[in-house]
């Protein structure tokens, strides 16, 4: 009887200890990009993986390896310049994402054939990162 009771107590204690873990899997509606930024950042976060951006860049919120082939993008939302000399705003970011060679002819970042719509969503996601 005593065994049973202490067993029940132990089981209860274990469940109580585990309960907060269930909360960790909760919802993630994501941060909002700055005012004036167009596109859907949540779709952009998915699009990032479908153009394999994360295979060269470390991108917060996107699971991938520790890579340093491209520059880490952890604070791209608050940088003043991108790609060396372009002012960091959404049209420039989209332009750079879609056609790096038009900015630097010899850029090692390839043209990945990103559509305008996808570039808008990708840039919307990246601009949430600060």
């Amino acid at each position, binding site marked *: 009887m005593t*065994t049973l009771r202490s067993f029940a107590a132990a089981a209860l204690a274990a469940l109580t200890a585990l309960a907060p873990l269930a909360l960790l899997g909760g919802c993630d509606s994501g941060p909002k990009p700055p005012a004036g930024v167009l596109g859907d950042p949540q779709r952009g976060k998915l699009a990032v993986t479908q153009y394999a951006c994360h295979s060269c860049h470390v991108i917060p919120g996107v*699971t991938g*390896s520790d*890579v340093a082939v491209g520059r880490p993008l952890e604070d791209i939302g608050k940088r003043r310049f991108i790609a060396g000399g372009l002012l960091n705003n959404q049209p420039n970011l989209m332009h750079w994402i879609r056609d790096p060679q038009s900015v630097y002819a010899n850029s*090692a970042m390839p043209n990945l054939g990103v559509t305008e719509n996808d570039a808008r969503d990708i840039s919307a996601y990246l601009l949430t990162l600060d």
Partner: protein
Amino acid sequence: MLSARTRLILNTAVLTLLAAAGVGAAVGFTVFRAGWYNIGATSPHFKYVYRGLEQAMRYSVRHHAQDVKVPALGQAAILRGAAVYRDNCAQCHGGPGVSPEGHGLSMQPAPGPLVDASAKWKARELYWITRHGVKMSGMPAWEFRLSDADIWSTVAFINQMPAMSARDYRALTAGMALTLAPPTGAPAAPGGKSQ
């Protein structure tokens, strides 16, 4: 003979562990059988699952490649490797200034660039990965597709990539059209442990 108190403690501990294992197994089986895990490649891996699998791959490759002997690889191998790479690897891995094709971009895990591969892997490990492939990653084995010499040529080329600009890459891969020698096949070649 154990005291009543010690027996009580032991019984409680054993029953608690058994119950926890039982609940864990039931939860695991339910998730498995109900199909709740999203196998789609648009749903990312859990970060720690990804990290764990990646690290396991690293250890496995290191272990299995340890007896591979690296041949001398000269300029001819690099040039040959450039063409082999262009025809067989760039579709998924791309190159400096060159995008992978669509299927390579949308795979999960992403095949990723190889411009940094020689910083992460020794030559014998690159050879082993190319020859044997990597299970469940999309990386195929090339043992029955490329000759041993061509696999080594590819490794020689990959080892040059860190210092390669987009222009260099274009120039090196613009060369010859390839006729592939038949693969040498499994048993004879010195490929390290195959298990």
